[in-house]
């Protein structure tokens, strides 16, 4: 399969959040600021790439009936690695992402790619797929986080653009996340339709 299209499909055409609508729980939860979105996106990308690689390597050795539990254990192992490393070297980011890091284990994107792609393709394609999907996820989170932070708090990556008195608090809270995500999905749908 063409590796280039394998990579780019995750960015826009099959973007996990904006087109497949997977993993919306952490998406809505952590994107109250752009920096949180970036941290969460990169952590998930690492887990996606590593679990896709390992699963595509061991797929023929795992009997079908215990496929899902084996995948989950592999994914959980990598998530815990990320959790420990973040706790050690970026305690500030770890604190602000909190419970959402361990929850990457049950993120539908990771298991979804393992099941739909890595368990059927070779290791190289799986890495490329994981990277594309992960970066697509990261991109969507950063854009979502930036819009919410800018409208809700008047800052972008903690850099202030206008005084706090003029902010719309709604965008930092849960309803703002739904509203912004809805508009982003609509725009991406439009772009994808136009391409066809």
């Amino acid at each position, binding site marked *: 399969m063409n590796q280039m299209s394998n990579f780019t499909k995750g960015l826009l055409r099959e973007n996990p959040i904006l087109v497949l609508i997977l993993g919306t729980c952490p998406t809505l939860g952590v994107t109250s600021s752009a920096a949180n979105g970036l941290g969460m996106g990169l952590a998930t990308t690492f887990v996606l790439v590593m679990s896709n690689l390992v699963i595509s390597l061991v797929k*023929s050795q795992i*009997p079908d009936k215990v496929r899902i539990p*084996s995948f989950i*254990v592999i994914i959980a192992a990598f998530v815990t*690695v990320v959790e*420990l490393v973040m706790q050690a*070297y970026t*305690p500030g980011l770890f604190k602000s992402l909190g419970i959402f890091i361990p929850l990457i284990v049950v993120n539908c994107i990771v298991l979804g790619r393992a099941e739909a792609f890595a368990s059927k393709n070779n290791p190289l394609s799986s890495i490329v797929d994981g990277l594309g999907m992960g970066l697509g996820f990261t991109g969507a989170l950063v854009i979502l986080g930036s819009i919410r932070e800018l409208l809700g*708090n008047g800052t972008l990556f903690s850099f202030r653009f206008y005084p706090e008195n003029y902010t719309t608090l709604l965008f*930092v809270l849960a309803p703002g996340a739904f509203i912004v995500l809805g508009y982003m999905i609509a725009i991406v749908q439009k772009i994808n339709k136009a391409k066809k």
Partner: protein
Amino acid sequence: MKQRESTFINMVGALLVVTLVSGALLGFVHQMTKSAIDLAREKAQSDAIASVLPPFDELAPTLKVLPEEGADSIEIFPALAQGHIVGYAVKSYSNNGFSGFISVMAGVDTLGNFTGYEVLEHKETPGLGSKMGDWFRNKEKEGQNVIGKSPGSVNFTVSKDGGDIDAITASTITSRAFLEALRRAHQGVTTLSEKNHGE
């Protein structure tokens, strides 16, 4: 390679190998990061102590005090300058935040006045309750400032409840919990100095 059959032996074997390898990997990473994690935690704590107290030379051994109300003991770090106690850093808490547990490092001088505070841990709403990190030390707004005040002379409850401190706009519950943590810190220091006088 041919797919392995789903026989009992194969399934048990596959799961055993997967869990063993994962466990070994986690043990290895845990070993690698353990010292860095402890270091980061200690640094966060000592940074907080330094920022809430006036300059000091050294910390006396940590004391644990059980406040009159509240289930858990609080830690008190007495700070010494030239052999004399200049203040106490108190790691206090409240369980009544809008989203539960709040942990605060508060600095109390020998007269019982607050010299500073630092919120260590909280899960309050971003943009609302999370403002407590700056709100209660805004020197321009005396009504909401707690620095330089003591619960011994000022009523440390929100003005809505008849107290003297202005709550964060739209975050009364967070404000109540935060002030509760400060009162608990102050009470811990009082208990401690009463005990020292008694001896």
